[in-house]
């Protein structure tokens, strides 16, 4: 479990992180979502003790990170896949982590296999790695101590589609086994597929947080029927906002359950009823972060 409590980080007069509080629970993947420069990386650096908070605190399973006797065995961290010594081989970088944590040497080979880096790739120097290979190496460094908590900053950057799928499955499996996974991204689609909980940050402030289900619900419902006009009227009569697209698909801000009740009461058969997830959440994301985005003025 990761707990962030009223965290504020100021650089001079600039506030990078502004009173941020959230909890990443065990057994769940928590997505940390926000546009570039929103304060995600700064928050993560505070979690692992690389940046001092101005006020507030962050803790891992109830302890400040610096109090962990051998942090690599408890928290797997990947903050920047490019932050590796370019002159070391991939295998050497893993060996350094393995030795620091005091793990058996065989773990290095296991991890290379786990992240699908071949033996010849592992013997190459990191300056010759693609970003995707660096990400895999970074993931291997994070996983080598078999930690219960993972903190990953933009881990999908530079991975190809198959790599992204692999990463997603890996994180899902980790959380299903009881681990805590916190991953950040500025891409909504990347996160919504895998995350159970979402924390959305913009301009250093948390603008929304909750389970993905809750946030999806807030994003509204898409409903289809053979008689969209009648259903539209019924929903409006029930006090819900409704919009109808050209092909007769209704979108409403009401929850799916409420829409179903209204349709039942009106005696209208539905052909499809679902939360507006993808599109809805994206709109919410853009909306929530509009003020803090560079394109904010145009949006």
């Amino acid at each position, binding site marked *: 479990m990761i707990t962030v409590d009223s965290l504020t980080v100021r650089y001079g007069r600039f506030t990078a992180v502004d009173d941020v509080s959230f909890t990443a629970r065990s057994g769940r993947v928590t997505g940390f979502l926000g546009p570039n420069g929103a304060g995600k990386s700064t928050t993560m650096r505070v979690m692992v003790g690389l940046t001092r908070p101005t006020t507030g605190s962050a803790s891992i399973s109830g302890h400040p*990170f610096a109090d962990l006797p051998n*942090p690599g065995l408890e928290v797997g*961290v990947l903050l920047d896949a490019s932050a590796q010594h370019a002159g070391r081989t991939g295998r050497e970088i893993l060996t350094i982590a393995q030795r620091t944590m005091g793990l058996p040497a065989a773990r290095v080979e296991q991890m290379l296999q786990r992240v699908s880096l071949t033996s010849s790739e592992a013997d190459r120097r990191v300056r010759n790695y693609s970003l995707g290979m660096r990400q895999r190496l970074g993931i291997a460094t994070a996983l080598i101590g078999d930690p219960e908590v993972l903190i990953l900053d933009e881990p999908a950057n530079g991975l190809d589609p198959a790599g992204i799928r692999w990463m997603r499955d890996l994180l899902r499996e980790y959380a299903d086994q009881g681990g805590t996974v916190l991953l950040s991204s500025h891409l909504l689609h990347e996160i919504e597929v895998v995350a159970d909980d979402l924390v959305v940050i913009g301009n250093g402030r948390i603008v929304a947080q909750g389970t993905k289900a809750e946030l999806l619900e807030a994003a509204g419902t898409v409903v289809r029927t053979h008689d969209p006009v009648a259903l539209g009227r019924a929903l409006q009569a029930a006090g819900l906002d409704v919009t109808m697209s050209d092909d007769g698909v209704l979108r409403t801000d009401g929850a799916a359950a409420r829409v179903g009740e209204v349709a039942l009461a009106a005696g209208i058969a539905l052909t499809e009823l679902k939360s507006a997830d993808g599109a809805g959440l994206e709109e919410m994301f853009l909306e929530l972060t509009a003020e803090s985005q560079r394109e904010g003025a145009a949006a």
Partner: protein
Amino acid sequence: MSTATLERETVASSPRTTPRPIPMTRIVGVELRKMFDTRSGFWLMTSVGIAAVLATVATLLFAPRDELSYGSFAGAIGVPMTIILPMIAVLAVTSEWSQRSGLTTFTLVPHRGRVITAKLLGTLLVGVTSIAVAFAVGALGNVVGSAIAGVDTSWDISLGNAATIFLADALGMLMGFTLGVLIRNSPGAIVGYFVYALVLPAIFEALSAYQDWFHDLRGWIDFNFASSALYDGGLSATEWAHVAVSGTFWLLIPLLVGLRLVLRSEVK
């Protein structure tokens, strides 16, 4: 999509024991390894041996036969050492920032003081070993050289002088280390060291030649000058005081400032 909204059952993981703290010996071991495991690091280390052999051979070839002594060998080997050893110290520190590997290093060991101490110990270990190797190569050269030249083997370096040479080289390494923690950037710290070791002495030398007051005070102000006496050995009490006083300003205070910066600064 619908499955994602279901609460997942969490599988209870096996009970974990609290890990034991990372021992200092392990951190020193890892930091030592990190000095050798890149191409530049490897060659820098190897160059210690290569330079010692080259300097010995050069002395054998070019030094006048009647001047062959342990001192001439040790002196020839000492020159490249005073350049290479501080570079090793500089890079041990600065690469964490310049290569950004500190992001991993300082999260695996979240006490920067321990990491920096380990780097210092590792650097000194390398220094002591290198100087010992240099002395050994020099001794070999002296024996071989005097045999070839047909002169008596002359051991003109006392144990006390050997100790002060050790100290001088260690201070040079510490100077590199200090610039490393102070500047935390490889090219910057290396340039800084050459300014300190090559440019400043020339300026002080000129100042000393034209300004009498500086000539008298030089030992108290110029750490380079004061510590160069260590290579010759047999320091007077005043000369020791020179090393201590100028060392406080050039080495100790900057080192403390640098350490404070390292402990407090943000690692990005």
